[in-house]
C-alpha cells in the first residue's frame, strides 16, 4: 500500500543517506540474507517500534502525555540525535 497522497512529515525526514544508512528494502534484504526473513514494511515497523520505545523513555522522564510518543518517535531530529548517541556508543555494549 502506498503512502497517502499529500503526506508530509512536519520536519522532513532524517538524513540517513549522508550517514551511509540504508533504505528499508535494503535492510529487509540484509535481514533476509542473515536468516531473518522480512519485508521492507516489517523493517520499517521494527525501526519505528525501536524509536517508540526510546521516545517512551523521554516522555516518562519529562512527564509528557503518551500522545507525544508517536510525534517524538517520528521526528527526524529525534531520530538523528539517537543516531548520534548510537554512533558515539558504538562498540560499547548497551
Amino acid at each position, binding site marked *: 500500500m502506498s503512502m497517502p497522497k499529500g503526506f508530509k512529515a512536519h520536519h522532513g525526514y532524517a538524513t540517513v543517506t549522508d550517514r*551511509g544508512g540504508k533504505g528499508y528494502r535494503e535492510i529487509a534484504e540484509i535481514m533476509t540474507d542473515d536468516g531473518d526473513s522480512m519485508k521492507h514494511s516489517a523493517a520499517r515497523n521494527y525501526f519505528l517500534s525501536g524509536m517508540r520505545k526510546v521516545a517512551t523513555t*523521554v516522555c516518562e*522522564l519529562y512527564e509528557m502525555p503518551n500522545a507525544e510518543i508517536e510525534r517524538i518517535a517520528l521526528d527526524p531530529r529525534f531520530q538523528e540525535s539517537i543516531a548520534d548517541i548510537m*554512533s558515539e556508543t558504538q562498540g560499547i555494549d*548497551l
Partner: protein
Amino acid sequence: MYKAYTFTEEYTETLKCEPSVDELAAAVRVPINTLRAIRKSGAPQLSLDAPVSKSDSGSRTFAELVGGVDDKDPGDDMDKVTLRSALVEALAKLSSREEKIIRLRFGLSEEDIDSTNFPISKKDFMKLQGGC
C-alpha cells in the same frame, strides 16, 4: 539623603521604630518614587574586581561569583546528561532485531571489517595485506 537619614534617626529615637516610606517622603518633602531612587543611588558601590573576602586578598572576586548574561545554565547541562543517560538505558532495552535494523538504517556497522556491505576482491585484499 542626609535629611532622610536625620529624620530616620530622630524618628527611631523618639518612637522606637523606623518610619514608613510614606512618612519619610512627607517629612523630607519629596515624592515617594524620588525617595526610592535616591535610596537606590545611595547604595554602596562594589567593584567586580574587588576580592569577596576583605581579610583574604587572594580570595575570589565578585566577577568570578556573578555569572554573565550569556553564561549557560548549569541546570541545562545537567538535563542533557540526564536525558542522554536515559536514552542510552532505553537503547539497551531494544531487542537485538530492532537494534540491528536501527543500526543499518543509520549506517552504523558494529564490525570493523564489513566485507558484506563493503566487498573487496581477493586481489585487493592480498594487495592490502602485502602493503602492511
